[in-house]
């Protein structure tokens, strides 16, 4: 029985964040960083360039999955593919041009970067940026395995493919 308790404890450690679902973001998490080009350190929610800012969504399977959806919906995959890169740099890697800490990725999304990465500040609220950060980091196994999906369910985004398939053609 004690061993079960220990095993349950391990499960608890790994999944207390895993199971968390914030369906309705708290008002504080709705902040939008409208001043995308600003270089000042003072921002709502604390100094973001500080590399030791932790992602409030760290380890949340729900947030990672939301981030995965937004990654497609906001067409990040248009440039970065599904993490492999294309027009934009690949996101599955060890070398980060602008830093790979949560705060750096957050900063990159908010401010944009030269050579094509648009600034998402002013458009999407803080909570979604953190979800995207969590997803991007999960691509590099920097989120707990227990909260990361091993594969997506990216059923053809383009419905035309399905029609073709139904008519007997292969993709």
């Amino acid at each position, binding site marked *: 029985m004690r*061993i*079960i308790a220990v*095993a*349950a404890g*391990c*499960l*608890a450690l*790994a*999944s*207390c964040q*895993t*199971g*968390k*679902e914030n*369906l309705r973001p708290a008002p504080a998490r709705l902040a939008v960083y409208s001043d995308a080009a600003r270089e000042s350190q003072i921002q709502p929610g604390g100094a973001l360039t500080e590399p030791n800012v932790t992602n409030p969504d760290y380890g949340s*399977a*729900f947030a*990672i*999955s939301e981030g*995965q*959806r937004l990654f497609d919906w906001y067409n990040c995959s248009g440039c970065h593919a599904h993490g492999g890169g294309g027009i934009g740099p690949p996101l599955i890697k060890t070398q980060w041009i602008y830093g790979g800490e949560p705060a750096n990725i957050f900063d990159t999304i908010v401010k944009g970067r030269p050579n094509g990465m648009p600034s998402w500040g002013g458009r999407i609220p803080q909570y979604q940026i953190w979800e995207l950060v969590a997803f991007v980091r999960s691509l590099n196994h920097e989120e707990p*395995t*227990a*909260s990361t*999906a*091993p*594969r*997506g*369910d*990216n*059923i*053809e985004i383009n419905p035309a493919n399905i029609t073709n398939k139904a008519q007997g053609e292969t993709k």
Partner: protein
Amino acid sequence: MSTLAELPSPQLAAELEAEHQALRRVWNDRGGFWGWFSVTTHQAIGMRYIVTAFIFLLLGGVEALLMRFQLARPENTLLGPDLYNRIFTTHGTTMMFLFAVPVMEGMSVYLVPLMIGTRNVAFPRLNAFGYWMYLAGGLVLYGAAFFNALPNAGWFSYPPLSGPQYSPGKGVDVWAQMITFTEISAMCVAVEIIVTIFRMRAPGMSLNRIPLFCWGSLVQSFMVIFAMPSVMIASTVMLLNDRTIGTHFVNPAEGGDPLLYQHVFWFFGHPEVYIIFIPALGMISSILEADTRRGVLGYPAIVLSQVATAFIGFGLWVHHMFATGLPQIGEAYFTAASMMIAITTGIIIFCWIATLWSGRLRLTTALHFVFGFLFIFVIGGLTGVMLASIPLDLQEHDTYFVVAHFHYVLIGGALFPLFGAFHFWFPKFTGRMINETLGKITFWMLFIGFNVTFFPMHILGLNGMTRRIYTYPVEMGWGPANALATVGACIIALGGILFIANVLNSRKNGKVAGSDPWQAGTLEWAAASPPEPYNFVRLPVVNGRYPLWLPAEERAAVTGMRTDKREILITASVDAEPQFLHVLPSTTIWPFLAALGATIGLVGSILTFSWYYVAVVLAGIGLLGWFWPRRPLEQEG
């Protein structure tokens, strides 16, 4: 030992008393803390199954009440969508996997050795292992509640909704692994029940003399053997691996198919209904025999119908998938097969009605439940015929009509017989009579409450109320019928409380029952109430289908078996001629330890695949201890 007092010769009485003492020494389980984990007698384990399953019934019932309160009025905000989804998933899962199947298994484990006249099941340690796995599975599911990881994708968890992307978190993994636990347990019981019935019947109990309840258990066990692997594949292999290591069984982007899961799941899921229902048929037959004072009319017809039901039951899984738009010719076949099953169940019911007509009725609580069963189950069966018709199914599928249908079939077809059986065998389980007046009040509360709850759901379904919705707008007009259903659910709950109170009270204060309070005909009533751990001082010899209804001078018993070992008699599979003697293992802690090892590994594997290896190694160590020969070794020769 009231039975000994009636014996003719004092010398024989002394002999029997000595055998009884010796058997008691050999068969009594060890006491103490570790002794509790080492039990291997079938009465103890059967009772643990039954009690544990009733606790899960209680939990599932509380969940049902919560859902009913949420739906009692339109736009209710008692439970949010997330909590509601988790609760209905847990309710369905609990009722199917942690209550209905295990409780039927528990009844079989307890009653089958008594009814066929032997001392234990064929594999007592496997039996213990199966129980511990079942308990662990239940604890895993409910333990997950503390980690916000209750499953939320429905009790059949269709992908892609239950897949890695649309069900983040560990809920569905917990669900899938819980299935592994309960299926291992079900398979353990199935194997030992089949072997027990085939190899360990009392001398003379040829196949055509097996009590109908045992036929039910036998058919059910065979169904478990062939159906349960399918759900292991669906949940553990397909779903869990898709979710944890990225396989593509159901991922259409890489050549998988979400419908494949549905096929594999329902290839198990439909037989599952009969796995629950067929033992209940056996219970009804047993109650009827005792309370009509006659053997059931058409014994061969009932047996063959049960077997046929089992066979057909494997051929109609697609009727759960009519709305998915499969090819028409196949659908017509599945319509026909689904309706055919009404013939076999119909014949069984006609046999029972004929039995009732020609018997001498004794209106016990148990017989009340049989009548309740007939009313409810016939409605459920007839709505089932409707659902087998594709056009009607297209309208009724996944609505409250289906919810009503399967509650009529499962509560009517399994829970009512089970409650009847529990009242009927209560004296055997506890040695005391259950209070019949309270029992009848319980029956009426359950019967009325049930119909008030579920009958309006037929109408709700036809009026477009779909399954698994956590709320509905006022304009739909579903409010009153839902309110009524909630009232009915409260009546059921009160009936349940009364039942528990009656059981607890009668256990202490009921009238002492004696070995055969109902003057029934089958062997379990020849054992003491409650049975001694070895069941019979001397194994009975059987000369007819209802041995206890034969004149006393025609009865016989086996002598010459050792009383210093847990020895049982192996008889021929068909005609039950004695073949050889066989020693069963004694109490042992190893099944518990093996189950514990498997549990640790399987729980870990919810997080990471490699924990399966831990499960294999730990369970392997458990099995090693389990099978390691004890000194002194069995003598040769």
